[in-house]
């Protein structure tokens, strides 16, 4: 490991991702040889850090690469380039056994709880399974009842099978499984999607309170801006595999600099602002990541686009303290009234 890399993760961050690239190539070796298909750049040069007990939200629409980023951050998908450091250790260079050790400290909560829980195991076995996988000594284990209590589930659920649980309960079992290893980082993919309002709010309360009591850090992947607006300390906005803007949550909401962020925020239906919105919505839809537009990926939908945007990809630059944006024209954008 070179010195320059180890310094990235040395600022006390739990997770440091630098210049991460994940490319999915289509077809077999022959078609790859003869076709011009360069593959899908799901993640295209993303850098990101998560500090202890920090909540970082990654927002983006479908196809933005946010889930791939989450998987790559835990070594759950192949990485084409760049580094993923957990406590200074680059997991892109580790073998399976040592990655597994890293995953004791950094765990994932998957989007669909029912498909991530084995239908043939009872809740009690599901909760203890991580201990067998990681060969955790008895003395460091939580009991089933303890785990259920942590996620505010009644202990009578221990004997049930996943199909007997409601969506919110299954989600909590997924969280309890994640907590069983006392991780320092939880990566949660769409933690509230598909849940009813009251079930979603109790999951969000739970995530908050776990941070308070255990100092857990979260990387929250979601398309729901109101969720990250409520929960996250820092937000990174992704569009077609790249981070287009990142910064403290309040700043991103109150003074977004990237036209895409502004469009996203303008698009949030909010209960207390029924009056007409000034900002025009982003027209059109997110293009296919297989064939992204040249230059700035957002230019076909951007009201500010000009000639440069069509040919030159903007780099992330620090526009304000802690707030970075990848836009050629952020100064003009910033001079407009916030959405």
């Amino acid at each position, binding site marked *: 490991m070179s010195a320059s890399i180890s310094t990235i993760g040395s600022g006390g961050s739990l997770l440091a991702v630098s210049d991460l690239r994940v490319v999915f190539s289509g077809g077999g070796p022959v078609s790859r040889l003869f076709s011009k298909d360069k593959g899908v750049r799901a993640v295209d040069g993303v850098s990101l850090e998560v500090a202890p007990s920090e909540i970082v939200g990654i927002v983006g*629409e*479908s196809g933005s690469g946010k889930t791939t980023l989450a998987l790559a951050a835990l070594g759950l998908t192949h990485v084409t380039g760049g580094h993923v450091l957990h406590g200074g250790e680059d997991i892109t260079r580790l073998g399976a056994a040592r990655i597994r050790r890293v995953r004791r400290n950094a765990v994932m909560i998957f989007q669909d709880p029912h498909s991530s829980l084995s239908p043939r195991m009872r809740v009690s076995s599901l909760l203890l399974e991580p201990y067998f996988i990681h060969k955790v000594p008895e003395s460091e284990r939580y009991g089933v009842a303890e785990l259920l209590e942590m996620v505010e589930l009644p202990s009578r659920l221990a004997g049930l099978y996943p199909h007997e649980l*409601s*969506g919110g309960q299954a989600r909590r079992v997924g969280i309890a499984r994640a907590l069983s290893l006392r991780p320092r980082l939880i990566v949660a993919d769409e933690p509230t999607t598909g849940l*009813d*309002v*009251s*079930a*979603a*709010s*109790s999951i*969000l*309360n739970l995530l*908050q309170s776990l941070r308070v009591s255990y100092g857990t850090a979260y990387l929250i992947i979601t*398309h729901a*801006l*109101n*969720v990250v*607006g*409520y*929960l996250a300390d820092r937000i990174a906005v992704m569009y077609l595999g790249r981070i287009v803007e990142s910064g403290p*949550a*309040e700043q991103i*909401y109150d003074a977004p600099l990237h036209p895409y962020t502004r*469009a*996203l925020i*303008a*698009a*949030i*239906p*909010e*209960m*207390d602002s*029924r009056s007409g919105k000034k900002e025009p*919505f*982003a*027209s059109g*839809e*997110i293009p296919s990541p297989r064939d992204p537009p040249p230059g700035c990926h957002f230019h076909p939908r951007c009201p500010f686009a000009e000639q440069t945007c069509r040919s030159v990809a903007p780099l992330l630059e620090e526009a304000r303290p802690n707030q970075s944006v990848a836009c050629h024209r952020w100064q003009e954008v910033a001079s407009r009234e916030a959405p």
Partner: protein
Amino acid sequence: MTPGDEVVLALENVGVEYESRGTTMRVLPGVSLELRRGEVVGLVGESGSGKSTLALAILRLLPANGRIVGGQILLDGSIDLTGLGEEALREMRGPKIAMVFQDPLTSLNPTFKIGGQMVDVQAAHAPRRARRVDRKAFLEKAVSLLGKVGLPDPDQIVRSYPHQLSGGMRQRVMIAMALSLEPELLIADEPTSALDVTLEAQILALLRSIQASRNLTILFVTHDLNVVAQICDRVVVMYAGEIVEQGGVLDVFEHPQHPYSEALLQAVPTRRNRGRTLATIPGQVPSLLREVRGCRFADRCGYTKQCCRTESPPVVASGASQAVRCHMRGPATLWESQEEKAQT
């Protein structure tokens, strides 16, 4: 556009039962609701509240194990939909009431081009004699409708198969198809739930502008309160098969009268309640296998009193424009508080 007083659809005490493995579940005990011409009404509730069942019951599209038991569904004040046969119902579905479903991919036939499907819808409802000649005119209408719902290059779209379009485009096609027979009432069941935020905003803006230009009545079924705030004039809150509160959107959102609506509104995460603990509603929706005594929300309510467990709450007018089903707001509140005073 302000909604008039003309009632387009009136549900009177509509009950729905589902039969499953020999047991009968009364999903809707008896719902009454009026939709006036030109208004957008949001029907909100969590899963299991019966909102989709109600929407399907209006169009008589309940699954085979469901049936309407009692009540009337009056269209235009005269036609009772509950009493119509299949043939007569078909005359209603489309020309009078159209529906847009959550998942456009399952509503569109994957083996036919968009144009053909849109022509078929119109042809099926054309007067019998005209059926043969008008396919060309129908296709022209389809193209113009696809343009009106904001699809670029509609000539190309009619020649595409559903899988060649994106989710947002398919939902626009569904809306165009629903409008092709010029219905008076559009029922939209979670039309934006599967879409990304920027697309959702586009579809909501589209529905609003169509509504205004045609004075269409829209029943918008959703679990998303933010969406209701964005598009609806009036909101109807359902819980366990009953309407617990209804009223103007701003009134209900600012001064919810029912404890359930209140909790629901406080449970929505926004950036404004950052750092605060969100309200949650403990417990579960009551099982409908048994007869529910008293108020259906009593077990989960923070204000439950003795009478809530024994007597069904009355529906009373409350607040600025609201009607609420709750003992707290009803006359029972008075004697309850007097009783409590007498005890102390």
